[in-house]
């Protein structure tokens, strides 16, 4: 492909990820949000051999201010993200933020405005005391929903139940996702909840909001993640194996989530189609070698595989049961351990997925490395009121 053709496809300039960084994910970390941002950003920079002064722009991703407990927390976090005296902005699309942040970094470079961009995602959920649930109650409409006593888990339970009903899916089929991801996370050095559990453990765990049980759910966490983006010229200077951002997609559905059929995430499909179109992907299950769909709940992984067109509607449980989504399967899904295993500091968790695909494509994922020699990978996050999809397609 001539570079001109590539450019028209992927932006004015083609963009690569050249380094990634990650902190531990834990229920409580001592570091402030600024310090967490710094640690992840510094690790990503060190991985490239570049210095902060080489970063021409900075993007921050972080979910509600109500977690960290700072109004305008993007401003507060700026120095930790390395933004001192630099063009800096924060993007925010709820749970979709973590994958969206590198997308924002992409247009900083793809536009030709900057040759480099430092992308940092952070979440310090433990600041909200005694539990981040308090912050989650304010994501709902104050007139229609908050008076009913809304709880975040409710809406997932409603969606999960609808999905199960529509395709006649059993809980034990869904529990396999939790079993797989928590086991995968045993190999992740940052993981909060890696474990060897069984389907029975999931089915016997405490019922939170039927059909959601304790082991269907990811934890709340503190943590940060970062990636360094560079234009083609710079990328080739600093590394022999850049990972290209070849597809970006995002989509939001209507605010009126109770007016939609929750069994299928149309918005994820819309975002995926946008990214596939840019990446020139026509047959996603064949062309995607590894994927990190968003899995704050186990059924979400299945739901998102379908939305991402990696399988037909209602088929994801079957693929999971057949082992297709295991690391050594035909379509490894969440080899990192996902949010269920590694943890869920909202924005940082999404960027962790991008880091994982980056490492997988470079063959640097250590014990987690999938055997299939992947060339094309995908990460996806989901957010807002069951309405946001953000998708990134990476190639080596």
């Amino acid at each position, binding site marked *: 492909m001539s570079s001109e053709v590539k450019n028209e496809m992927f932006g004015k300039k083609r963009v690569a990820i050249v380094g990634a960084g990650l902190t531990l994910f834990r229920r409580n970390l*001592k570091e402030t949000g600024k310090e967490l941002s710094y640690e992840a950003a510094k690790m990503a920079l060190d991985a490239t051999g570049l210095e902060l002064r080489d970063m021409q722009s900075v993007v921050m991703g972080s979910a509600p201010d109500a977690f960290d407990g700072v109004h305008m927390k993007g401003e507060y976090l700026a120095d930790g993200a390395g933004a001192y*005296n630099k063009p800096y902005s924060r993007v925010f699309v709820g749970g979709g933020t973590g994958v969206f942040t590198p997308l924002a970094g992409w247009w900083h470079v793809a536009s030709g405005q900057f040759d480099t961009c430092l992308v940092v995602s952070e979440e310090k959920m433990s*600041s909200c005391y005694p539990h981040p649930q308090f912050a989650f109650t304010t994501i709902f409409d104050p007139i229609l929903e908050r008076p009913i006593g809304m709880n975040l888990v409710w809406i997932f339970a409603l969606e999960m139940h609808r999905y199960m009903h529509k395709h006649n899916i059993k809980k034990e089929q869904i529990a396999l996702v939790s079993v797989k991801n928590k086991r995968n996370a045993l190999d992740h050095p940052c993981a909060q909840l890696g474990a060897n559990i069984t389907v029975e453990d999931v089915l016997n765990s405490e019922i939170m909001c039927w059909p959601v049980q304790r082991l269907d759910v990811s934890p709340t966490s503190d943590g940060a993640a970062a990636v360094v983006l560079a234009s083609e010229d710079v990328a080739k200077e600093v590394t022999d194996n850049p990972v290209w951002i070849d597809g970006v997609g995002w989509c939001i559905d209507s605010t009126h989530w109770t007016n939609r059929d929750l069994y299928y995430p149309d918005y994820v499909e819309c975002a995926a189609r946008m990214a596939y179109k840019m990446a020139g992907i026509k047959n996603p299950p064949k062309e995607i070698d590894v994927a990190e769909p968003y899995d704050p709940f186990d059924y979400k992984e299945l739901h998102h595989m379908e939305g991402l067109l990696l399988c037909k509607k209602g088929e994801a449980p079957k693929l999971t049961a057949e082992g297709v989504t295991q690391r050594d399967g035909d379509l490894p899904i969440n080899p990192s351990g996902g949010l269920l295993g590694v943890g869920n500091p909202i924005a940082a968790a999404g960027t962790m997925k991008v880091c994982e695909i980056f490492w997988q494509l470079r063959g640097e994922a250590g014990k987690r490395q999938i055997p299939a020699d992947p060339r094309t990978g995908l990460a996806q996050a989901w957010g807002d009121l069951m309405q946001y999809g953000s998708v990134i397609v990476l190639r080596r």
Partner: protein
Amino acid sequence: MSLEKIINPLNVRHWLGDMEADYVYTLGVAGERFFKEIKENGRIMGAKCPRCGIVFVPPRMYCEQCFAKLEEWVDVGKKGVIHTFTIATIDVDGSKLEKPVIYALIKFEGAHGGLIHKIGETDTVSIGMKVEAVLKPPQERKASINDIKYFKPTE
């Protein structure tokens, strides 16, 4: 534009609510050490950047300018100079304060930055005025910026 508007003021509705929750902030790696130094040793510390040579007050984990990790800590003393100040006459709710509060940025010799705090034991204040920290008695200190009661003029 909507086809219909509210034209009767009595039909205008508001819905009351809040976004209030309790927060507990860890002080951070640098913050915890900084406030422990104040609490346990009565010292105000800075952290020196091994690359830029800048001494940051308050000390941070990292140099905000070059991203070097800051590991060398130095005592910057309790005496400083007012870089700027203001006299606040109203409270956060807009009500008049019974007694105006003086806020200032106090800079320490050889250090970049300083501390934002209140100025006490004086009604007059000016840029360049020399001040020193007045700490709470050790048993009342909690590893907080308020372990310093205020700064007061040295003369």
